[in-house]
């Protein structure tokens, strides 16, 4: 049966590609292609399940294609199948099937009908990658797919301001998570000195073999994955993104944020269980976070006057409990709880518009004016305090703004020595010089060797910080981003003697994407359209094709899976040594920023409200 596993991702991938080729107005065809994809995959799953049952429910591992291989690095797409995959896939399939059918009528005649279904199928593909991943690299592919489809589904109503703003907000959280996942992979790579497979660590764990023996790594590695899980499952302190993700049609909110995407953090924890299973302190840590989340989210849900936000926080509270269950080792309960919560919240979200009629009717017959609050006792005061905090969402929404965006903007704005011109006259020539010395490393003084990579990476970070706050022409910011990536590559080149082919792989991705991006700017400017970054322009309304082209360029530049940049990114991190914390941090930081800066440019140019008077302009508050 193991050779069948790969088809669980190949079928959705094929279905996604098929869906892309269908004409946008053929709603029935688009729907059936999506349903066929999910249906076929579910049938295959049933077959695999039977075989799996026959094998006595033993874990299954299968090797897939090798994308890249050297003596030190091996990047292959492998598969793994166990109870967790089975339960998650069962819930995924049922919900995907139901929500797709629901959406067929619900989304009917929407301008973005095809976009919506393509995104749902791609999201499903991403989930399949995650659920059946045999190693962290494969899982990462799925992870990125989920991030990008999230962005598109939140910003589904791209002509309005808030969906676009919130899509960027959510994706910036996701980007942080993705980079932590990458760091986790990097640490594992260093610790195990190869790409570990889930099957082998599971096997070691079963046999009682120690997996991580160094105390530092016992905490560091699982902590990386924990951050990822906390972000994705909207646990403290990252909870506030979840209600803000409910911007698209109710059906996508239901399947993404009511159920599947938000429970995937739990899956990651369960998947990496052998890495922390014996670390009681770590269990206490995330169990406590789960508990705190449950408390805070329950209070917040109690005061919500917005039905979808209320469901979101109720769901977060239950996921907090699931964290506790996992911490207590009650994995089976956690799985059942996951399934129940996923179904319940999906259903609640789908029928949420009917709450108005139902509760008004209920109020009509049963209303009793609530008692007014007292202020006498301490517990009265405590209650009022909790009320205000809950209305303010415990300041969780301001969290990202205060601790992420604002400092970044502050730094970016104070880097006056970086701008597009200095890039052309200073940094690009500097890069050429750098390249020369990278080839002729024997000419570089030894004392520089240790600091040069850090200095170069720092320049890269400066450049990208500046790109992040640019408000004028988009091409300038784009130039800064590209140059920054070049400097990161250069930093790696100086860090270690290695095959230049790897750097070229990385750079080829960057440069092709960069050129594609410039072509898009040129196309827009030729049509005398504005390409500044000080406001949203919403060009996708008039130029959907340029928007798609630019999206591809953006994905390339941010290292989206399957692009050369991505493979390069993974390999490059492999060349950073385990004790080079500064360099690691800088590179990780630049990767986060790179993603954010690129998505920002895309959003500013192609999404949001426009200023043309010939069709309706949405309010900024909508």
């Amino acid at each position, binding site marked *: 049966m193991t050779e069948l596993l790969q088809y669980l991702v190949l079928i959705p991938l094929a279905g996604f590609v098929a869906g892309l080729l269908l004409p946008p107005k053929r709603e029935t065809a688009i729907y059936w292609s999506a349903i066929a994809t999910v249906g076929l995959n579910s049938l295959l799953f049933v077959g695999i399940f039977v075989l799996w049952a026959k094998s006595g429910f033993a874990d299954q591992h299968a090797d897939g294609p090798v994308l890249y291989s050297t003596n030190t690095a091996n990047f292959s797409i492998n598969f793994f199948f166990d109870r967790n995959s089975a339960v998650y896939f069962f819930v995924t399939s049922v919900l995907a099937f139901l929500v797709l059918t629901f959406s067929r*009528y619900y989304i009917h005649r929407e301008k973005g009908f095809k976009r919506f279904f393509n995104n749902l199928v791609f999201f499903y593909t991403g989930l399949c990658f995650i659920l059946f991943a045999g190693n962290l690299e494969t899982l990462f592919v799925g992870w990125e797919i989920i991030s990008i489809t999230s962005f598109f589904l939140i910003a589904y109503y791209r002509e309005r301001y808030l969906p676009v703003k919130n899509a960027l907000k959510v994706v910036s959280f996701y980007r942080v998570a993705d980079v932590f996942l990458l760091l986790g992979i990097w640490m594992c790579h260093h610790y195990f000195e190869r790409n570990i497979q889930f099957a082998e660590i599971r096997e070691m764990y079963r046999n009682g073999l120690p997996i991580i023996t160094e105390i530092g790594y016992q905490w560091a590695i699982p902590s990386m994955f924990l951050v990822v899980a906390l972000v994705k499952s909207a646990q403290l302190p990252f909870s506030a993104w979840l209600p803000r993700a409910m911007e698209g049609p109710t059906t996508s909110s239901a399947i993404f944020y009511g159920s599947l995407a938000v429970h995937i953090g739990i899956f990651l924890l369960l998947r990496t269980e052998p890495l922390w299973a014996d670390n009681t302190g770590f269990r206490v840590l995330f169990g406590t976070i789960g508990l705190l989340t449950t408390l805070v989210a329950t209070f917040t849900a*109690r005061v919500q006057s917005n039905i979808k936000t209320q469901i979101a926080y109720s769901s977060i509270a239950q996921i907090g409990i699931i964290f506790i269950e996992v911490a207590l080792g009650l994995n089976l309960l956690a799985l059942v709880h996951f399934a129940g919560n996923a179904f*319940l919240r999906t259903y*609640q979200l789908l029928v949420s518009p009917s709450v108005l009629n139902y509760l008004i009717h209920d109020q009509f017959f049963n209303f009793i004016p*609530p008692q007014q609050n007292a202020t006498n006792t301490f517990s009265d005061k405590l209650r009022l305090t909790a009320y205000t905090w809950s209305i303010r969402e415990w300041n969780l929404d301001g969290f990202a703004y205060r601790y992420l965006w604002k400092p970044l903007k502050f730094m970016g704005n104070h880097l006056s020595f970086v701008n597009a011109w200095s890039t052309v006259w200073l940094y690009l020539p500097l890069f050429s010089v750098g390249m020369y010395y990278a080839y002729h490393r024997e000419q570089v003084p030894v004392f520089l060797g240790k600091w040069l990579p850090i200095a170069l990476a720092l320049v890269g970070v400066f450049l990208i910080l500046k790109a992040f706050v640019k408000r004028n022409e988009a091409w300038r910011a784009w130039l800064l981003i590209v140059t920054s990536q070049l400097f990161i590559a250069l930093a790696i080149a100086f860090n270690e003697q290695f095959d230049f082919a790897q750097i070229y792989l990385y750079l080829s991705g960057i440069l092709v994407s960069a050129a594609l991006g410039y072509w898009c700017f040129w196309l827009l400017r030729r049509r005398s359209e504005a390409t500044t970054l000080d406001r949203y322009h919403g060009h996708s309304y008039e130029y959907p094709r340029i928007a798609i082209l630019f999206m591809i360029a953006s994905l390339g530049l941010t290292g989206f899976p399957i692009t050369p940049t991505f493979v390069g990114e993974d390999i490059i991190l492999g060349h950073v040594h385990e004790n080079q914390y500064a360099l690691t941090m800088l590179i990780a930081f630049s990767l986060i920023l790179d993603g954010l800066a690129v998505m920002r440019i895309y959003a500013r140019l192609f999404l949001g409200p426009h200023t043309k008077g*010939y069709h309706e302009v949405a309010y900024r508050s909508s």
Partner: protein
Amino acid sequence: MGHATHPFDLKHVLHELRHYLPSQTPLKDFIHHNTLHAFQEMPFYEAIFTASSIFGYQVTFNVHEYRRLHQIGRIRDEILDRVIRERHGEREVKIWKERALSKPYKHEYEPRVGRLREAWKNLYRIDLDNLVQPLFFRILGSYLDQGIALWHFPFVDQGLLSAVRELEKEGLTGGFFRSGRVRALLFDEANCTIPHLLHLLVGDPALYEQYLFDQQFGHRGWSGMVATIEEKPDSVLYPKKISLEEAIVLELLLELDALDQEFGETQWKPLVETSRFEPLNLFAKVERTELQEVLMIWQDAFEWSYYDDVLAGLQHLRSIEPEQEQEDVPDKTFQAIFCLDEREGSLRRHLELTDTHCETLGCPGFFGVEFYFHHAGGKFYEKLCPLQVTPHHLIKETKGNHKREHEHFHSKHTHRVFGGFFSSLSLGLWSAVKLTLNLFRPRMSPAISNAFAHMQLDGELIIENTDPGQMENGLQIGYTVPEMTDRVENLLRGIGMVSNFADIVYVLGHGSSSANNPHHGAYDCGACSGRPGSVNARVFAFMANHAGVRTLLDSRGLHIPATTQFLGGLHDTAADEIAFFDEKTLAPANAEAHKRNRGIFEEALDLNAKERSRRFVSINTKQDIRKIREAIRRRSVSYFEPRPELGHGTNALCFVGHRSLTKGLFLDRRAFLNSYDYRTDPDGKLLLGVMRPLPPVCGGINLEYYFSRMDNQKLGAGPKLSHHVVGLIGVANSSDGDLRPGLPLQMIEVHDPIRLLILVEHDPEVVLRTIKMEPALYDWFDKGWVHLAAINPATNEFHVFKNGAFRPYKPSKEGIALAENIHDLLESAAEMETNHIVHATQENLPVHILSERQDARV
């Protein structure tokens, strides 16, 4: 409206704000009204272009769209020529036509509102809206919340600001403010006023009004809701003390707090100290541009291209069957009085085709009986009459065991920690099953709005009042016999129903069942304040059957035969089902006839379902008619169906006249049909009463659809797929978003935004005299918000009202299509490719003459 030069006059500005803010009430009542009611004292085009310049609304299509409508023939060339000729004279036809057809124009978007407040962003680099609005909306939402939250906002009986103060004072860590200065201001009631706060923020009184307009129109949904609840406190069931003034104070405080947080207390300066601002008079006169002239030409041509078809159809109908008009239906099997609602037009047509001896009539769906209704076991009254009417009577429902079922998925337990835990483990798995059932076998459930549940079928009503002293909360319980007689007489005379009564007269209200639909009130009967008309129908039937009433009517010269019985009923316009009330009161002979009539109704409902199905892609119009009917019924209880029905979409016409005026004409459910017989009212004494409600009710519906269609982002509610229900009072698009008044996209996408044409069957002189009696009524026509035409029964000529007078009109369309078979006609309809206006109009069926000989039953 003079501004700018005045010093800041708070009272005046608050009044102006209330005037211009949307006035939609909380969604439990949905009453259609002219979205731009604030501009109604101006002529239509001046009003809409002024509103557009001030607030940035899109009020017409753009030039390209009109041109494409012209290319596909939806706007007729000869009509375009005629409109230009009328507007600019024969000599300029060529110039203006060229401008309309090919001159390039640039549509600018530069609303006056919002320019001052942009300074925060441009000069201070701070996004005040992002910092303030999410919290501000959340506070307002929680304060006004009717029952979503489990914890209610404390101290709502004290008013918004006092409640906020209490929270600030009693909370252990303070309340919503972080700046010490702002906190002090909050408690300093002498300075916690709008002028003082504006002084801190803006600095120059000449700019205050503009600033407040910028601020409040940055979230017109919430501001409008606050102003509406302030003005109509009983529009919510859980009473909330709030005022627009308080809300503005709170918002200003939050703005100060955000600025203090960002820049440090007193580290920043008010706007006027940073830059020079020229006060802008938002309401300054808007100069007409050439583009606007062109748009006016196009819109007129668009409208008249359709009206002309209709008038030509009417003319044709008269020419082929000249005697028909005089003729009353012979040997009536039954009569049925419907609401004038244009959705009932098709059912009436199908009834008449199925049984050529029945007669149908139309009047506003509250049937002239205005009252509050008290449900058995209900804690509140419901108003069941048009918005403008204030009833003094109460109808009470007694008995009837109102057993309400519960929907556990909406239960608050699921939002508690342990409740949520156990719900996930129990309800959770069940919900997967339930969702599957809902998808493949949709059926009625407690969470679905059910038109028939508005009144219990087996309940009893107290309708008659025997002792005028019987009062409840200032309302008289039931009507006395003379009061009942007045109402019955008024209605019957108004619709010209004074002789030749059939044995059974059905009185049919309408309502609409739908699932997952916060706007369900917008689908119900507008004349019953957005509720089903079942109680009104039943009450009217009771009155008209009352022996005392009959005697009194006799003495007033209105004789209803003793054999004639009135029977109330309700038509569900979404599910296409009918229920009748009090059937057991029928005399045996009538009961027998009623049994047969029910069969006629069923057949007509089948046909009606088929007619409606042509606009629903999910239903194949060519399949077996029974299957279509079933699909239509399922649609009304399907959670996944955002279009249970299409509401008033495509409404365009309103006929005031005898049924024979339009009988046999296929108008595609676009006409309100109000019965009126000029023969029983030669000098127009009754006409005023008949016409008075039409512009506000039908015109209100029409204009709300018009504006929601033209600008679905600003004046409509946008696609309903992403709506969040907030506080049970409204919908927003986002957890941090503004409320969205207006109609959602799914209601207006089939609509052709053209103004209503009211056509009266009477001598134009009489009509003119009638409308001049009431200035408010006259203004609707004179200012062009609603078109008016008359057909003179003596000459069969049309007259169109314009510039204060009726002028003769000759339809230019020739060759009205003839439909031999209604089934073929319905099946021939095109399906819209997208919901863009050019495609949407292609879906409409043109005016047809229905052949009399056809057999509808096939």
